[in-house]
């Protein structure tokens, strides 16, 4: 993944096992968001590949990747503030529904039925993340923590096999963070969805992650269980800021996932620096 002269990701190869919570951590500018942008197809990798199970996602447009089972919750909420919570989550059902301008406009029976069925599912999802009581309020009137959960609910509404969570607890207070952690675990337990998580909050990560990959300056410097990572000297050095240096080499992501595991393999992309 390269942005002009800047290489944002280099030789990053990671593999998320199905049904796990896999966290990606690293200091600011380490390339975490870029990794997500490559996986979800917002940026296209200049080299390397992203695979979901046996399917190659590399080079596909974002809506195709979503259709193949990758749901993404954004870091800074990209939803519509004036729309109700329900409408925002319903957007996630886009690919699972069929009605077009004519069938919706004429309220054809099957389109009405489809809408009703999917709304029912949206209510379930909203209750799953604890938003059942605010479904009809405009998103913009909700608290910060609630809005973040709407974003997760919307990503879940695409019925993904893999859920990408981009800093889900950034800026949250302790109580909100605790609720989000519960949701992440519940997603894995009761829905069996693989979660790929980017986050800065270490205690949150340690409490939910099954496996952690550490990025620094666009390279993978460590990969292991939370316990291994906590004691890894390279990670400690990166966080304390003792390593420095830039990498101008090639950039990569490999992402593989089948029925819930995603792996990012050597991949490069081009655009301005993230974070």
């Amino acid at each position: 993944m390269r942005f002009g002269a800047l290489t944002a990701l280099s030789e990053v190869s990671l593999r998320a096992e199905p049904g796990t919570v896999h966290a990606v951590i690293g200091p600011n500018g380490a390339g975490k968001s870029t990794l997500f942008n490559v996986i979800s197809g917002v940026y296209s990798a200049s080299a390397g590949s992203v695979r979901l199970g046996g399917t190659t996602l590399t080079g596909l447009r974002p809506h195709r990747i979503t259709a193949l089972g990758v749901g993404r919750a954004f870091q800074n909420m990209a939803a519509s503030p004036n729309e109700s919570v329900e409408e925002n989550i319903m957007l996630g059902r886009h690919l699972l529904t069929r009605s077009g301008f004519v069938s919706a406009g004429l309220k054809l029976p099957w389109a009405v039925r489809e809408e009703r069925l999917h709304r029912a599912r949206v209510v379930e999802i909203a209750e799953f993340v604890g938003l059942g009581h605010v479904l009809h309020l405009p998103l913009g009137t909700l608290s910060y923590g609630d809005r973040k959960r709407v974003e997760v609910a919307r990503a879940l509404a695409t019925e993904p096999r893999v859920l990408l969570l981009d800093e889900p607890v950034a800026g949250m207070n302790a109580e909100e963070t605790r609720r989000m952690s519960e949701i992440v675990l519940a997603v894995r337990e009761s829905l069996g969805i693989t979660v790929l998580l980017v986050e800065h909050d270490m205690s949150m990560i340690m409490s939910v992650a099954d496996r952690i990959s550490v990025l620094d300056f666009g390279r993978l410097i460590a990969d292991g269980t939370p316990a291994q990572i906590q004691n890894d000297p390279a990670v400690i050095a990166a966080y304390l800021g003792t390593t420095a240096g830039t990498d101008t080499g090639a950039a990569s992501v490999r992402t593989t996932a089948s029925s819930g595991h995603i792996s990012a393999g050597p991949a490069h992309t081009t655009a301005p620096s993230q974070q």
Partner: protein
Amino acid sequence: MFGAAIGAIGLNILVGTTGQLSLGHAFFLAVGGISYCWLSGESNDAGAHPYVGLGLPPLLGMVLAVGISGLAGLLFSPIGARLKGLYLGIASLGMVFVGIHVFNSVDQVSGGHNGRTVPEFSLFGFTFDDSDPELYVLNVEFEKFERLWYLGLVLAVGCYLFARATLNGRPGRALRAVRDSEIAASVNGVNVTSYRAKAFLLSSMYAGLSGVLFALAIGSVAPESFAIEISVQYLAMIVLGGLGSVGGACAGAAFVTALPYVLGEYAASIPGLSEPGTGGVSYSEAARYAYGAAVILVIIFWPTGLAGIARSLKLVSMRRAARNAPT
């Protein structure tokens, strides 16, 4: 007026809901209005400016005219779908200027600079003009004006319901997502280019129908009847009414069409206004001042338009309900 409401609903789908700016609405009105005249009108070989008409039944003419407007919309979809926001705004300005030129050039169809008369509308033998069979409802004689009024009302209600259903359903959600964040929309699986093209197409069909009604109401159209000022008026309607709201578009249409009449009605009693040609400020000029000023003031003090007021009232009551509900 109902014609205006239909056109405004169509433009609002494109501008308010999808977030594309269009100043090309007048062009699609022209396509609708002039196609209708061509399809359902009679040929006129007499005089220095002959034109042709296919003499089709008016209802068929109306339906086909809307179809042709849609086709024109499709034709411009390489521009309509690929350009974003403000760029489309100016590009669509080009459609109006080039459109008028093209229509003037095909004077066999449009009647050229002199225009052509608009064939009366009729449905199953009932004509929407002043002729027989005479119709009285509640002792009011239904003449052309009243008959067209009801035709417009029926069509506008139909268009209103269709637009509301579409926008409340899956397509509307997708369009709003395109407006609010292109990337978020695509990550949710919305094909951004395709939805922009569809919004453009739907908007041009609404404009086409609006053009037919406009033509019926004024009785004679020329390409110059559909100048850039018409586009500006429609844009004013949806901004005043409230961007993205179907009901707001109708309210805005009512306001903008009624303003000159209201000012005309009361012109005599407003000090400082005078008859046209006497050197003072005439009422049509006063209407233009008022309308320019209204647009500016509404945006500064009341940015969500008429629909915004309704929405905030609703929100207040919903919040109150949420507060009172046991948690």
